[in-house]
């Protein structure tokens, strides 16, 4: 039993910090410290710097451009970026579609798409959810019909995050309507410029434009844009969703937010004392920190198991904790940040938009905190809602 990082791992952490200090633009960092999502330009600029360093895709195997890190190094890297904060490598490219192409794609698909994913020459988005297929994803209705030398896709996707930035979309569509619902689905790569695709924004409750509806109206897709085998797209989807589990803990991001919360609570007066001296508020912060520490150790256990059981495919019950606890903590901290702002959290406006606080009606730090709180309610819904997570646990680990 050795519960500490090795000297090499600590040295690696320092290497990542040094890289962040040297390369991450301060404007990006300050933008993110203020609680805003990085802009498309910021994400692209940063992804290219990571790519130049060979760090664009921590999870990818070395022969496809990954850095060949151990699970512990991957964790350290992810955490340091979140704590800085700096944008993470673009999830759609690096954690979602890229690994599917590496696992199931043809040599041609790999050569064509992977280098452009690494360098963010193409921004990808995810075409999974549909109006009638949310938690029950396999109930999707979008159809792909083979017609000579191409497929023709018709249907509608929804909750498509950042489709407005995207050059490509990976799509689950039904190719055999007669088969059982998981068995007639295929995984397609679709150029967003193809005629017949319409993107319509969905404005979420905080006023931001993050998600979209994407309509497919006789969209022609070349035959070689199907990944893996026809009607075996569900395997790709399961593989993709299985890769998400580490990402959702976001320990570094929560630590950065708690740090921010403490600075704010120290500087904000509550009666004749700083807010941080209110025992009730402080206790609520402490509760978050304690669960976060436990989550951090849980992530370590999952990583250690990963190293040990590489390839056995045996799930670790601790993995199911990551999504539920990770999102509960992030949501909890976002609520405390909003509380800290008091009435000044109420100024309406998209927290990501520039210049909306031009009349200085609220302190800069307070502006948009309610928006982040409202927006982050999504976390316990997406990626398999927390209730779906409990269903999975009951079946996979509890034998119920």
């Amino acid at each position, binding site marked *: *039993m*050795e*519960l*500490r*990082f090795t000297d090499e791992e600590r040295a690696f952490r320092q290497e990542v910090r040094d890289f962040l200090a040297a390369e991450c633009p301060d404007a990006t960092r300050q933008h993110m410290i203020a609680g805003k999502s990085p802009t498309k330009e910021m994400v692209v600029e940063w992804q290219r710097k990571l790519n130049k360093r060979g760090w664009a895709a921590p999870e990818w195997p070395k022969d496809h451009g990954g850095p060949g890190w151990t699970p*512990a190094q991957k964790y350290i890297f992810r955490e340091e970026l979140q704590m800085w904060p700096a944008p993470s490598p673009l999830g759609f490219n690096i954690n979602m579609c890229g690994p599917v192409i590496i696992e199931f794609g043809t040599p041609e698909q790999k050569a064509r798409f992977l280098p452009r994913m690494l360098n963010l020459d193409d921004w990808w988005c995810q075409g999974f959810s549909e109006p009638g297929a949310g938690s029950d994803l396999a109930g999707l209705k979008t159809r792909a019909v083979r017609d000579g030398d191409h497929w023709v896709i018709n249907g509608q996707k929804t909750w498509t995050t950042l489709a407005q930035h995207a050059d490509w979309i990976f799509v689950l569509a039904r190719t055999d309507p007669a088969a059982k619902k998981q068995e007639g689905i295929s995984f397609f790569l679709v150029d967003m410029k193809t005629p017949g695709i319409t993107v319509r924004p969905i404005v979420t409750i905080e006023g931001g434009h993050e998600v979209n509806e994407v309509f497919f109206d006789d969209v022609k897709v070349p035959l070689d844009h199907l990944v893996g085998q026809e009607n075996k797209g569900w395997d790709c989807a399961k593989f993709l969703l299985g890769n998400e589990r580490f990402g959702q803990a976001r320990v570094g991001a929560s*630590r950065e937010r*708690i*740090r921010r919360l*403490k*600075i704010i609570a*120290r500087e904000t007066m509550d009666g004749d004392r700083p807010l941080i001296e209110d*025992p009730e508020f*402080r*206790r609520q*912060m*402490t*509760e978050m*920190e*304690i*669960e*976060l*520490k*436990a*989550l*951090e*150790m*849980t992530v*370590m*256990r999952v*990583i*250690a*198991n990963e190293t*040990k059981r590489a390839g056995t495919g045996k799930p670790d*019950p*601790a993995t*199911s*904790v990551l999504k*539920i*606890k990770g999102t509960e903590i992030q949501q909890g901290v976002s609520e405390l940040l909003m509380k800290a702002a008091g009435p000044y959290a109420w100024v309406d406006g998209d927290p990501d938009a520039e210049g909306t606080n031009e009349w200085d009606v609220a302190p800069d730090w307070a502006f948009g905190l309610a928006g982040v709180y409202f927006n982050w309610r999504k976390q316990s819904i997406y990626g398999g809602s927390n*209730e779906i*997570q*409990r*269903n999975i*646990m*009951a079946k996979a*680990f*509890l*034998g*119920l």
Partner: protein
Amino acid sequence: MDFDLNESQGMLQDSVRKLLSDKYGFENRKAYLASETGWSRDLWAQYADLGLLGLPFDEEDGGFGGGGEEVMIVAEQMGRHITLEPWLSTVVLGGGFLRHGAAADLRADMVAGVAGGGVLLAFAQQERQSRYDLHDVATTAKKDGASWVITGRKGMVLHGDTADHFIVTARISGNRRDKGGIGVFLVPAKAEGVAVRGFRQVDGSRAAEVEFSDARAEHALGTPEDGLALVDKVVDEAIAALAAEAIGAMDVVHAMTLDYMKTRQQFGKPIGSFQALQHKAADMLVAIEQSRSMAYFATMAARDPDAAERRRNMHAVKAQIGRSQRLVGQEAIQLHGGIAMTMEYAAGHYFKRLTVNEASFGDTDFHLRSLSDLGGLVQAA
């Protein structure tokens, strides 16, 4: 990062597991509980044979040189059987004071007896007014030649009714709640002026009210007048052991609950098929896994040479596991239904031990408040 046991740790775990599976079924436990001492002298001798009583002591003192991991392994197995023997009080608490506070000659005198099973120890610190503050000490110690004279009343002394020696906190100087001026003393139970009244706690453990009236202590442990640092250190090690005990008990009562959910039929199907109940069982698993993580963290944090950092981390451990064990205990009863309310059924006994464990050396509220008063875990830069 490696959470695996090495070969000798694996052997230790196997041997304790085997002994307790053979000798500590629920029916055995009932018999031990009903016996005169309230626990099994026979098993105590077998713990000694297995090396569990000398576990944490240095080999040169006659121990087995085990560290926090070994203590955790044993405590977890004991938690699985909610054992009744005075292992925590004698080996973890008493042993901790001997290891960290006793001069070499006293250690040489005592360790062989403890490791052999012949000497039992108990930590007498609780007072009627002190609640969870280890520095709140009204009992007094006065120097008299080479020895000390102790006067005061200690309560809820775990396994105080069978102890051969008490490790007693007493005030040498200052006011009742001062952090300085506290000494730690070793007082033989047979010394003149020591009155012991034993009783049973709700979790089945034995305890005692101990009154010291000008009782004589020949040995002070640690630095007289600065005993609190020693007490904090030993209590933090005990908190790590309690954490592991809680994991063992939670694992068992959770498994028991799942078994029941799979077999108990209502409305023509197993109650485990109902989603409302499944989600409660899943939440128990989340709590247990988070706690298991914290129990590992506890063994690492308890040996941190930075005392302030150690205390902060142990507050976090105790608060997190405290909340989890409350949830797991309460939901285990709820998911079983009426059967778990009966004395005949094991789940309730686990619930009672978890409840006492939660409040041992400070309940969840106490540790949350303490940590939050110290500024929490995350440094604001």
